[in-house]
């Protein structure tokens, strides 16, 4: 009897042990290219792939050249503004979905799902002729502006993301609090600002930060719709990669990577303080909830 349990315990350990080894290997795989980029951002050579020595040349050339700095600046402005647009549109839609459901819900959710699953390259090739049509044929000059094009394009996908996050948050909260406020004669405006808004705030903040990050990282759509003079950083990097791999590319990438990690860390903190479990957070952040 005791031998049997000993044997079983031994086997249990073996399964767990091999799964753990697999887990560690997967983490190595997941971080391999990221670590690689970070290490090579300190390469002093002229060509990124050939390691010649440790130094800050890549970072120095970033700060000394105006083109990459302008690209990062463009990206930050576009990310901030498109996050505002997406947060406002998405939050309103999320409230409507959670609190005013009706026949329209199915159709609207179908549209949201379609926006989320359509491969980015399709949006990209669709938006380029569209902006040409609006800006040149319909003469709406705003759509010839690179910033407007980028902000609008980026905000479409993130509006869908914010909508789902806010809807999920409000769906998990009983409407009775808001009804109580109504019964106590709070005006709808007051009811919204004092009850609904504080309740949905974690989702709104998280959604806004995700929208910011999504825009900051957007490459495919940006590469199609950008206009000379408003090049966002991934497009600048993509163009540089195709001509020559310089260490400066790894340095920009590393800095933007740090920025993204901070933004995503903040999303995690906001959601955690809003009472989500780590599994909920992961689901929210990947749109798989």
């Amino acid at each position, binding site marked *: 009897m005791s031998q049997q349990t000993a044997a079983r315990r031994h086997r249990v350990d073996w399964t767990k042990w091999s799964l753990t080894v697999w887990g560690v290997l997967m983490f190595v795989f997941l971080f391999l290219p990221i670590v690689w980029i970070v290490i090579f951002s300190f390469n002093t050579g002229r060509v990124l792939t050939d390691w010649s020595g440790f130094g800050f040349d890549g970072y120095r050339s970033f700060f000394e050249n105006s083109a990459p700095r302008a690209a990062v600046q463009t990206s930050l402005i576009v990310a901030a503004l498109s996050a505002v647009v997406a947060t406002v549109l998405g939050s309103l839609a999320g409230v409507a979905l959670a609190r005013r459901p009706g026949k329209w819900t199915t159709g609207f959710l179908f*549209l949201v799902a379609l926006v989320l699953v359509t491969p980015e390259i399709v949006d990209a090739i669709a938006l380029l002729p569209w902006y040409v049509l609006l800006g040149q044929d319909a003469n709406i000059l705003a759509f010839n502006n690179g910033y407007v094009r980028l902000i609008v394009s980026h905000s479409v996908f993130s509006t869908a993301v914010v909508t789902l996050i806010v809807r999920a948050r409000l769906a998990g909260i009983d409407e009775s609090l808001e009804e109580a406020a109504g019964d106590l004669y709070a005006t709808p405006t007051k009811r919204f600002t004092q009850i609904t808004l504080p309740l949905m705030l974690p989702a709104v903040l998280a959604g806004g930060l995700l929208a910011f990050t999504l825009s900051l990282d957007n490459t495919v759509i940006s590469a199609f719709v950008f206009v000379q003079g408003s090049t966002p950083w991934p497009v600048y990097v993509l163009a540089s990669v195709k001509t020559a791999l310089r260490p400066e590319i790894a340095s920009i990438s590393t800095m933007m990577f740090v920025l993204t990690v901070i933004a995503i860390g903040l999303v995690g903190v906001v959601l955690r303080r809003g009472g989500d479990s780590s599994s909920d957070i*992961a689901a929210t*952040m990947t749109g798989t909830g």
Partner: protein
Amino acid sequence: MTTDTMETADAGSTAPVPSSTKKPRRARAPKFLLALPAWTWFILFFALPVGLVLLYSLGEQVSSFVQKPDISPDVWSLDNFPKAFDPAFAPIFWRTLRISITGTFICLIISVPFSYWLATKVSPRWRGVLLGLVLVPFWTNFLVRTIGWQLILAPNGFVSQKLQDVGITSGDLGLLYTQAGVQIGVVYNYLPLMILPLYVAFERIDSAMTEASKDLGANRLKTFVQVTMPLAMPGAIAGMLLVFIPLMGDYITASLLGGAKGTMAGVLVADQFLNTFNWSRGAAMAVIMIGFILAALAVFAIVGLLLRAIVRARRRVSLPEAAA
């Protein structure tokens, strides 16, 4: 905004009325009003542009110097489709499908043990931290990750050098700008989209289920195959969809790691819009690409349903004694 003012007016005039009579009044304000701005946004900058692409695919290129095709209804035809799928391009679509299916299954196979381990074997205190670590590559810029692989796979890169030092290969690795290189790149790039839904699915399984299976005499393998995996199936299906669909439309991985030998459909489509300036052919290619995705999903769904029916039929438990 409009709802607010309308309801404010309502609330002012009907303040003393009990809430039961207030409800039908509130319902009079259009319910979808708050969603209207987002809806408009989706129509204007998603539905209409994509619709225009569909029109372009029916149109006709005016000349090789004009990007915009003629899309007046009298020139509509399906001529662009055979041209977009001619012998020069068709193999690229088939390759895209092959790379995507292979990539999706590799992701699934390597993620199942990983997500299972993360959800059930890691102590709860570490689980949050490790999950956060999985999110880091997911949120790292796609382009940056791909450049990382470009460095690793480069002929004079680290992996190639080490393999030569050890004596496994004599020449360079030769993975960059090949299908194998693209395959590694896409598995890496879309992997978190498989890990996370699987993790959520494994984590939500009630441990009472697996314990019951063990109490009824099933061993660990049997429990995993017959209880845990079926319960995690929604997560696996979600993961496969989340990986397969964007992978079919991949542009960045293929254009950075693929070279001429590993091009995929997304690069082909992009090329028509950015370099060749033949919008109607590019649009037709995009439509074909979407057609491939939908067809693959349909086949996948049919095969899945058939498999489920077979498994259920073979495992049917009949309890005649209990009934009698």
